[in-house]
């Protein structure tokens, strides 16, 4: 199995076969995580650099775990400890890393398009671990894997994506991924957090009750206070009343609805604690699947299938 793309810059350029290949590979690799010795030599001798320009706990540790399980040699660079703090440009940092001939660079960056910039200037394979408000492809893949696991399929599912759509790279990747896999996606948020033209991708409603009516899955997006320049909604209280996922509101969805959240959660803002910790929540399954999906991505892009 191999992918049609050399890099993983986003879900948008992937075709359905690519997505299915990644999910199938993740399914078969996940079993390694349950073994007593969680290590296979698939990527022995391959080097991966995790270059994180934004704080990240989940995504970074997930990539690191995946790299270790597959025996890749990896190294993580975070901005606070890197030359970026001394004012080095991205191109110079990357040229220095390139001089060490890594096989892959996993990049998390606050600027949309930063992975595309790297792809133009590097020989290494680039994996986008989240770029600005553009895409976060491995998050969408792990969400799809979780849905497929729990529901047996993605095709035909009604999935509501609710919250801060404006700033969300998770939303954009998920819209592409779910639609390519045949799900019906409905988007919902206050108009101030719905960017123009988003309705060209999927139907948009400002009414949360309508969005989650009969939903098979609800994907709650984090309100990204750190990216806001103010004035998107009057108060956290009103946001929670109109767009927060509460037990009461959840009754409108299907009885076996799944609740997903990319994390980190703002409890009491977009999601009530009893929902986040409740029986429909698959938020921790998402984390486990995150490692499996990233193993699959590394494996497929680094030619672990036995390329010379």
């Amino acid at each position, binding site marked *: 199995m191999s992918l049609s793309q050399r890099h993983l810059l986003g879900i948008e350029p992937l075709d359905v076969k690519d997505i299915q290949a990644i999910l199938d590979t993740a399914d078969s690799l996940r079993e390694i995580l349950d073994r007593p010795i969680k290590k296979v030599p698939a990527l022995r001798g391959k080097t991966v650099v995790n270059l994180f320009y934004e704080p990240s706990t989940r995504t970074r540790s997930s990539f690191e775990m995946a790299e270790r399980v597959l025996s890749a040699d990896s190294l993580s660079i975070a901005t606070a400890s890197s030359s970026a703090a001394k004012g080095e440009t991205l191109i110079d940092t990357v040229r220095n890393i390139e001089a060490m001939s890594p096989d892959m660079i996993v990049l998390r960056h606050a600027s949309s398009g930063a992975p*595309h910039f790297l792809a133009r200037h590097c020989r290494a394979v680039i994996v986008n671990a989240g770029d600005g*408000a553009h895409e976060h492809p491995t998050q969408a893949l792990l969400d799809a894997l979780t849905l497929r696991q729990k529901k047996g399929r993605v095709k035909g599912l009604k999935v509501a994506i609710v919250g801060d759509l404006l700033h969300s790279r998770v939303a954009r990747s998920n819209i592409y991924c779910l639609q390519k896999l045949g799900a019906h996606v409905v988007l919902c948020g206050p108009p101030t957090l719905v960017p123009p033209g988003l309705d060209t991708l999927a139907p948009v409603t400002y009414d949360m009750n309508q969005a989650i009516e009969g939903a098979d899955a609800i994907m709650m997006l984090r309100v990204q206070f750190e990216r806001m320049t103010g004035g998107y909604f009057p108060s956290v209280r009103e946001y929670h009343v109109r767009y927060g996922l509460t037990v009461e509101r959840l009754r409108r969805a299907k009885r076996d609805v799944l609740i997903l959240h990319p994390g980190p959660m703002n409890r009491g803002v977009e999601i009530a604690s009893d929902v986040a910790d409740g029986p429909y929540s698959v938020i921790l399954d998402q984390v486990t699947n995150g490692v499996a999906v990233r193993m699959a991505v590394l494996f497929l892009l680094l030619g672990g299938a036995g390329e010379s």
Partner: protein
Amino acid sequence: MSRLLLKGGRVVDPAHEVDDVLDLLIEDGKITQLEPRISAKGVEVVDLEGLVVAPGFIDLHTHLREPGREDKETIATGTKAAAIGGFTAVCAMPNTDPVNDQAGITRAILEKAKAAGMVRVYPIGAITRGSRGEELAEYGDLRDAGCVAISDDGRPVASARVMRRALEYAKTFGLTVIDHCEEPTLSEKACMNEGPVSTLLGLRGAPAAGEAIMVERDILLAELTGGKVHIAHISAALSVDAVRRGKARGIQVTAEACPHHFALTDEVVKETEYDTHTKMNPPLRAEPDRAAVVEGLRDGTIDCIATDHAPHTVDDKRVEYDQAAFGIVGLETAVALSIDKLLSPGVVDIAGLVRLLSSNPARILGLPGGTLAAGSPADVTVLDLGKKKAVDPNRFATKGRNTPFGGLSLKGWPVMTIVGGHVVFRDL
């Protein structure tokens, strides 16, 4: 006495409704004769058969960067680029370092241009001191020193009160106020046009309405004050509509458009995968905006083509998209793009093209030139409408390499530029 005879070219001078095969005699920096067959002895003869001979093109919107950012451009390199691009005169925007907000700076620019410039340089003074948008600059001194207009280009005048005072006060000196129209609170941190493409790319967008709000404001203030306003680099359909309505009401408003705004749309930001050479301000807009700019150029709502030539260093552009400097170079591509994208498809005829690049810019700011009538300054642009060439940024005379048009093959190029009777560029 230096004498030059241009023979057999198709002379297009819309200011005098001339479009004929004529000879043109230049003596001592002036055009002295324009006749079907001129025979003169002891002159240098240039055969221009099959080529178009037009009054020298004038760019109302150039960033020469000197003084202050000579790493990006100098008056020498910028005016050389202008000559190669077919321009005989450029108007230099005041956002240099220091800002051209005092007569001393204007004079320094003019002295440098006299010494090192290959084409005419007309400085534009600042609207406000330091272009900070607060106190007016000294327009009288600026004009007397040689400024031909005032503008706070790049740092739009946010306050309606300040813009009102500028339009009023500028009337004393007959100066036109050139405004970069942008409502700053609608474009905070924006790096492209707001719309479906910015949404897909996850980039912050500036809505077209943010430009149009200021165009509407400026037109209303021009009406209120009786001042003259010129809308720089118009990019949005809403703005073109505002100018059209303003002109219909008899308000003194004129407008310019840049080649990138009639040649490209915001889709190229996506197609090129965040190439920072697609980043400028105002940004590339959506297709209906591009089409409206073309229509405005066709029906005369937009008076002229200007380059907004904005050279930057490689380092300014070789960064993340949202970190990159705004702007592209334009002097060496504007004329070819205008021929290829407007003349060839029949949007304008040759007289219309010459109006947009020469006679109208001259008229808007009352500059010499814009015609080839006997007695005019011998500023001439010669075009080869059949010449095909690809844009090669590595061969630019400007220091800037920041163009989205690299590699693009265009038909119709300037092949000779004459300023005051001197041939400053020749590629025959």
